[in-house]
């Protein structure tokens, strides 16, 4: 008995439900918690795709890093504004129509495209293959990423510096 379809449908419905909660929740803090749930569910989807390394990266960077930064920003801004952040949405109908149009467009394209059903075998050690490619074939993007991080670090510190 193959458990993969069960895992896919369970995680997929969890993902869709928590994503809807992210965009519809009135309380911004609850939105962030639902986003954490959605990102963790995505790590589970990566596991069903046999990408264990990426599931770990997803949990560390996204569910760990991004959620921490967003919660920190909410705490800081809540102190600045002084009252509880509730958020409202505007133009729900045009937004829903636009998103539905994009979805129908993508699904229509997916319906016509020939897509494989079977999975070809991956190399024996995927994590080793990723690490090897990172330092040989993709070493330039890897180094550029380091430069990008330096720029982002300096930029974030510059923007968030205290007023003189």
């Amino acid at each position: 008995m193959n458990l993969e379809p069960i895992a896919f449908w369970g995680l997929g419905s969890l993902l869709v439900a928590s994503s809807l909660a992210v965009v519809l929740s009135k309380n911004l803090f609850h939105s962030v918690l639902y986003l954490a749930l959605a990102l963790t569910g995505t790590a589970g989807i990566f596991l069903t795709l046999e990408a264990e390394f990426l599931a770990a990266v997803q949990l560390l960077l996204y569910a760990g890093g991004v959620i921490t930064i967003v919660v920190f920003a909410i705490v800081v801004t809540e102190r600045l504004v002084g009252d509880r952040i509730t958020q409202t949405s505007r133009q729900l109908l045009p937004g829903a129509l636009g998103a539905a149009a994009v979805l129908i467009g993508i699904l229509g394209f997916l319906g016509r495209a020939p897509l494989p059903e079977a999975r070809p075998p991956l190399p024996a050690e995927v994590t080793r293959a990723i690490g090897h490619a990172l330092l040989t074939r993709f070493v330039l993007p890897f180094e550029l990423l380091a430069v990008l991080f330096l720029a982002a670090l300096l930029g974030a510190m510059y923007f968030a510096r205290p007023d003189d």
Partner: protein
Amino acid sequence: MGLQAYLTLAALLFAIGLFGVVTRRNMIGILLGIELMLNAVNINLVAFARFNGDPAGLLFTVFTISITVAEVAVGLALVIRIFRSRRTVVADHLDLLRG
């Protein structure tokens, strides 16, 4: 499950994220919508990599995840900056350039 199922799930998440970006008024809420959209893109990348049997696609996902984290850090720094100078979180209130 075939590739189609994963791509459909990613398209659904992308549309939900787009809905959030368009309808949210709070800037942090808009950023959360962008996160959802980028997350859907990551699912697409991993699914294509798996069904092509090529680890290079997984490597791209590592890059996109890292760049997203940098983007969130800078975006939230900008949000904090805007709070400090304009005292507002609502994107509609930032209309300095309106003619």
